[in-house]
């Protein structure tokens, strides 16, 4: 693993190592002195071509807690707005010798394309509608904080699956560990080919059926910015695909409710559910830092060993 582009190609032991290491880093978050010096003198560049608050901040904090220097660049303030191509921008940054580039981009495959030309390891912080590997890792960490194993769990992901990189990364990860993944959303946002991406995937457009017996419910944000047309009547989205208290009773009694954020209250999730005891949304955010510390440590120490 030179960088981290996606979950699809990762082997189960690699994922387990990251999740275990993340567990080591969890207590750091509660210390008054939060800084470890594992990556002192190393530098990462956070390159975000797409708006992001939590992921960018989370990576930045993760790098700093490991003692690395972190620089954040957003597209609006960069040379991209001056017409420079993506390859040129990345080559320019790479020439400044960062140890890794953490990148978010609205185009699916942008980091994969760059990885072919750049020597610097790239960590994918979300590419278009393709993958968001650290989100799936932090989701798995969050589930495993509450369950002994992922195997056999029924994990239901609800929302705009077609345009969701969170759904793709999660279904790859969960499937590798033997979870049953139920994907649910409006038919126009639920391409039938999804069931062929990994073993153990079930598709349904019926939310109640999807939730019945679930151990985990992951709600996805309605991604208005990724829909080029209205694939489902917005006015009735919440009625058919919004998670409300009445749904919770259909799931296992100890079901946990997750959401990658930012949440749209009243659009895909009701406030009552978002703020309920079942919700682990803020734990996900917290785990984001520990998981990203584990990923950065892995990526940066690998490079060190190779060079």
């Amino acid at each position, binding site marked *: 693993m030179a960088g981290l582009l996606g979950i699809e190609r990762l082997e189960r032991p690699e994922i387990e190592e990251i999740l275990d290491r993340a567990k080591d880093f969890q207590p750091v978050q509660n210390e008054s002195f939060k800084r470890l010096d594992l990556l002192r003198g190393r530098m990462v560049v956070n390159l975000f071509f797409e708006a992001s608050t939590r992921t960018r901040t989370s990576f930045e904090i993760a790098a700093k807690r490991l003692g690395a220097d972190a620089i954040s660049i957003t597209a609006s303030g960069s040379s991209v707005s001056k017409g420079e*191509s993506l390859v040129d921008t990345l080559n320019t940054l790479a020439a400044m010798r960062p140890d890794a580039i953490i990148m978010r981009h609205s185009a*699916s*495959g942008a980091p994969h*394309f760059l990885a072919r030309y750049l020597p610097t390891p790239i960590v994918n912080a979300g590419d278009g509608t*393709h993958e968001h590997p650290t989100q799936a890792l932090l989701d798995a960490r969050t589930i495993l904080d509450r369950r002994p194993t992922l195997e056999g769990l029924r994990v239901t992901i609800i929302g705009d699956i077609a345009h969701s990189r969170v759904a793709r990364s999660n279904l790859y990860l969960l499937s590798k560990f033997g979870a049953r993944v139920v994907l649910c959303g409006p038919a126009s946002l639920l*391409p039938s*080919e999804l069931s062929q991406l990994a073993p153990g995937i079930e598709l349904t457009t019926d939310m109640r059926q999807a939730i019945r017996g679930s151990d985990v419910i992951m709600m996805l944000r309605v991604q208005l910015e990724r829909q080029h047309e209205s694939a489902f009547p917005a006015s009735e989205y919440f009625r058919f695909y919004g998670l409300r208290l009445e749904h919770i009773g259909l799931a296992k009694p100890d079901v946990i409710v997750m959401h990658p954020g930012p949440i749209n209250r009243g659009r895909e999730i009701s406030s009552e559910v978002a703020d309920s005891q079942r919700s682990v949304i803020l734990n996900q955010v917290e785990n984001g830092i520990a998981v990203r510390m584990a990923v950065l440590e892995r990526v940066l120490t690998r490079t060190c060993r190779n060079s």
Partner: protein
Amino acid sequence: MSKLLIKNGRVLDPASGLDAVLQIAMEDGKFTAIGEMLDLPGAEVFDASGMIVAPGFIDMHVHLREPGFEYAETIESGAKAAAAGGFTTICCMPNTLPVNDNPTVTSYIIERANRHAVVNVLPIGAITKGSAGEELAAIGSMVQAGIVAISDDGRPVMNARVMRRAMETAKSFGIPVIDHCEDLHLSSGGDMHEGVQSVRFGLRGIPSASEDVMVARDILLAELTGARFHVAHISARHSVEMVAFAKSRGLSVTCETTPHHFALTDVDVLEYDSNYKMKPPLRSAHDIDAVLRGLTNGTIDAIATDHAPHAGSEKMQEFEKCPFGIIGLETALGLTLEKLVHSGRITVGSMVELFTTGPASVLQLQAGRIAVGRPADLTIFDTDREWTYDVNRSCSKSRNSPFDGHVFRGGPVATVVGGKIVWQV
């Protein structure tokens, strides 16, 4: 007075049914004699022993990018690439800048070709002004200036009424309408074939139905108007079936496919490699099967390359930002030999038809046959020599090919245009 004698080759001319080892003599650009024992004093002699000598291949679908995009290709460089691929006649699509929608641009292209192109260049005019899909272009005047067909390739006419009028007009001027069949609403935003692979890559899909619905519409309009209608780069299963149906009804409906559409499927698309991005996209295995069937049973009339050069910088971008299209002139024969002939699907004679009499009859050209008195255009190729395609040595100005490094068995050896060898390996 130039003389050329091609000796000892297996002369394969589907139009006349000729298939024998013969000598071919050419003088002043024309065939002067074809026979077993010929002598032509003072002639340049080319020994084609062990090779096949066929009528000059016709590629009825290329993009030469001139005028307007000379950084990606010129008439000169595109024609060189054509010669290196064994083509002696190429038809260039009108999506230049300005668009070839009037006789001035048509004449400019012909003038440039006369001066700089080593092969015959036949322009295709636009259907509508600026290929905007609204107002008909100066079709009759362009026919007089030398276009052989009309097409708004790449920007298909979405308005069925405009298409109807275009067909009526084309019919009256004796040329076919070529349509890049794509319902732009259905394919909107798509980057590759809609299937498992597009879902896996998180790329927006282009469903086969976006091709099918337009093929259906155009066949119905061809019946309504009696026009000659030709489907460009057919790639989808139902489209092939509908063309076969139209032919069975006696309509003047024809189609072409490209080597990449029968050589590769959507599963072959390398992760976010824009050298696999083209329209129509590389389709599913089901679609490819139908295209292969169409090639063997005569539904598909011609193989064309849709040679679409793009400068390196245009293809070195995020996949969704890259323009559609790949170059194809130099790899067409090699791919066709590999996928159709060596695989035993068709004979080498049938392959020659797909490159000669097939397109010639779609466009009603005089080219595509070896006969005394005709322009002396020949494609000399072999079927067994191993060679490796090195895109960096391409005659094209562009490098966007998924076949770089591909090892071929058989390919062009020499190309004769107007009685002169314009390229040899």
